[in-house]
């Protein structure tokens, strides 16, 4: 893309003059850097970007982006982003949110934004904890997690972001990890270019209140065995030695070892991110450690009509037919009489 980029931005152009106040070692720093890099590579004028957020550590991000930004109220970023995008469909609107912001207090707005398929990009930082309020469990905390508000462990099941997204008829879902700048960059670019609501779950480490929650994913020793990075059109293969893969048996995902029982690469599932039927995608986003590798990359990406386009179309169609073209005409439409 950089060859055709007429704006010639570098990542630094997207840094605001505000001091970044996240904790040292926080995964958010990496996310910010990859986003700034992604924007520099896209061929979009800076003034067309809007970063919208709710409340929480993640939601401070708009202050650090030298673009238009709106730091909203808890849970409501999706609604604010909706108003911005429909008001001016030419803008590229990014919603920055967290697991508490998007899935607890803002759960309703999240599913409805996804359902409408508005062309907005939702980057959801999932650290499975409330950080800014200093360590309470969130809707994605693993069952049993001991926190300040669950001193004896939580007794709730947790949400999976991908399942909620697909359940709300989501057309784009990708997952990345905060430290993996290359994959993140790839995923954010794809989200930016996707036509419709894009949900990106970023597995993010809260170094203070939930440090190591994703260790099995981030640990250099084990991460390749515990995750699978999906690429459209390629077989579902993973592992440090690239000797493991995924197959479908009795409608369930199954991890197999290449070479064992005569299994070859040809027997593995081929990732089709563009398949409208969500069956396999749903299984992929639901895979959890230790039974399965955690799926990363672009898991689902379906092109479908967007809400903002639908509204424009409807306006054009109504305007073609209506005799009312200004308020004066509206006020005089229907039954009137002269005195």
């Amino acid at each position: 893309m950089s060859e055709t980029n007429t704006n010639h931005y570098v990542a630094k152009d997207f840094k605001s003059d505000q001091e970044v106040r996240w904790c040292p070692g926080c995964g958010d720093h990496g996310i910010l850097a990859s986003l700034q890099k992604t924007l520099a590579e896209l061929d979009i004028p800076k003034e067309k970007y809007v970063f919208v957020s709710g409340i929480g550590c993640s939601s401070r991000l708009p202050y650090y982006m030298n673009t238009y930004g709106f730091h909203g109220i808890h849970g409501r970023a999706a609604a604010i982003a909706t108003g911005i995008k429909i008001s001016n469909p030419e803008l590229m609107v990014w919603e920055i949110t967290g697991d508490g912001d998007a899935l607890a207090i803002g759960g309703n707005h999240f599913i409805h934004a996804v359902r409408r398929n508005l062309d907005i990009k939702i980057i959801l930082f999932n650290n499975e904890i409330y950080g800014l309020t200093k360590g309470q469990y969130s809707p994605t905390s693993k069952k049993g997690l001991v926190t300040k508000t669950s001193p004896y462990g939580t007794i709730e099941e947790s949400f999976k972001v991908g399942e909620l997204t697909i359940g709300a008829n989501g057309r784009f879902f990708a997952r990345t990890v905060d430290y993996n700048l290359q994959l993140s960059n790839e995923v954010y670019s794809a989200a930016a270019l996707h036509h419709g609501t894009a949900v990106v779950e970023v597995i993010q480490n809260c170094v203070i209140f939930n440090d190591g929650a994703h260790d099995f994913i981030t640990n250099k020793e084990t991460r390749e065995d515990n995750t699978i990075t999906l690429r459209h059109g390629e077989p579902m293969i993973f592992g440090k030695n690239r000797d493991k893969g995924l197959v479908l048996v009795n409608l369930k995902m199954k991890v197999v070892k290449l070479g064992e029982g005569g299994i070859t690469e040809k027997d593995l599932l081929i990732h089709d991110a563009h398949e409208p039927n969500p069956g396999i995608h749903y299984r992929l986003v639901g895979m959890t450690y230790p039974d399965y590798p955690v799926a990363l990359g672009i898991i689902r990406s379906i092109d479908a009509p967007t809400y903002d386009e639908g509204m424009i179309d409807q306006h054009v169609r109504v305007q073609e037919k209506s005799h009312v073209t200004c308020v004066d005409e509206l006020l005089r439409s229907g039954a009137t009489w002269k005195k």
Partner: protein
Amino acid sequence: MGKRLTVIEKDDVVIRFSGDSGDGMQLTGTLFSATSALFGNDISTFPDYPAEIRAPQGTVGGVSGFQVHIGHKQVNTPGDFADVLVAMNPAAVRANARYLTKGATIIYDSDNFTEKHIARAGYKSDPFIEDKLDGMHLIPAPITSIVREALKNTDLDQKTILRTKNMFALGMVYWLFDSKLNYTEEFIEEKFGKKPLVAEANSKVLRAGYYYAETIQAVAPSYKVSPANIEKGTYRNINGNQATAWGLLAAAEKAGLKLFIGSYPITPATGILEELALRKDLGAKSLQAEDEIAGICIAIGASFAGSLGVTSTSGPGLALKSEAINLAVMTELPLVVVDVQRGGPSTGLPTKTEQADLWQALYGRNGESPVVVLAAGTPSDCFHYAFRAAKIAVEYMTPVILLTDSYLANGSEPWRIPSMSEMPKVTVPWAVKTDKEFLPYERDPETLARRWAVPGMEGLEHRVGGLEKTIKGSVSYTPENHEYMVKMREDKVEGVVAQVPDLKIVGCTTGDLLVIGWGSTYGHIVTAVTELQNEGHSVSAVNFNYIRPLPKNTDAVFAGFKQRVVCELNLGQFANYLRMKHQKYTYHQFNKVQGLPFTVREIKEYCIKLLEGNSNE
């Protein structure tokens, strides 16, 4: 057409259509009102219906009513007492017996006055004797059986046939007023255009009712109310919700902005969203959100992106929106919040009127949260105040709450249509790129409004949000900065007084008693005070439409009177607000919290008590 035996010529007449909530009384009332308005009468209407779509049939709780007051002179209220009652069943008689003038005419469907129906309405014997109505002009009409007979040779099912009963009653009332049927016939044709059989049946029954009344004319007088002598111009009928929606559209057009409503259905405000959803031809964008909070947040997002953001709601929804209103206070974005008040608290009386959200509008938020609060006085007035609300919101970069209520929203009156050229200008404080750094919270020295830079404008990138900011737009927890910004936002809203017109006094500027109202009590108060003046009392009235800030001449107006009484449909919210804002005066209170508007009579009686020094205050 037969000769009329008795014709009573009157300045004004009140008609009430009343029946089960599925009997079509709202439509009947609306059609009669439109016909009268087209004839040239002044009108004022008041629909009064239960919250249930089909409440239990034949019970008093299920009665749906539509009252219309038609006049040869200006009418300001739907009237306290009805001269003509159309009662489709005994429950309708029971519900309205208290609200009839002496010698009123009661048209009723005698087929429905069976023992069973009479008992369901709570009567033990003859309803008319039990409620002492036997001295009225009673016109029994076997509406159900005539309608059945008239339509027996059609292919329509019984349910559809019985649904035309309201047209029969309407036809009878048209004869009583010597009205023309053409408007209603055109309406029927348009409404049932795709179902010619149904259209034909309704027209046939309408005419059958008219001729039936003509045939039995000896039993009741008919009425003549000559056209009103009102200002020249083009008129239309308009209700409060429609007027509100159109006023917002007018302001958006004047400002050169696109209107964007994010809203959620709630009685009695839904009509505003419905009306604006129709107006894609004018470029208005509407989104029915997933909840009240999303509605307002979508509107705020739209304003950030350069639209005129609007949200409409009622009291329970305003409560849900309060955090987001503060976001608009803090980000200093234009936003109009329309609160169509209903009976509260909680779900309260969803379809009834009340003025009890005043404090919620003024104070129902955390922190120092100044917003402009306006209140419309009549249904058509909603156009004007919606326009003003939007103008202030844009010019001062602030949320404005416009209070209307169920009475205004559903009530209608003829309205002289203004021309857009006579509406005031709306000046948008757009930010302009200069060599200097853009400071998002730098203010216009006169209005204290910040400049509006919207995404897409090159070089004006900035961040806003709910955290306290410096002029530069940086987050700041500095004590002095916070206090400075709090005071700036306060001063800005107080400064709106520059756009607030002086109060107009109805009557002399000095006297024994000043009757004070705000918002929708206008019509009843003015009617009561005018009648008192005509009876020789030293009484004047003022009605407040600007609640925050209050008009500049408030103090001077209050000073001219020996006593002041605040009449409002709550327990004294505005009276207490005035006690705080204008402390040197004492205020009597006249309050009503029944989900109903005032009657002219009760206001007059209370005023007379005060004038005679008999108040228990």
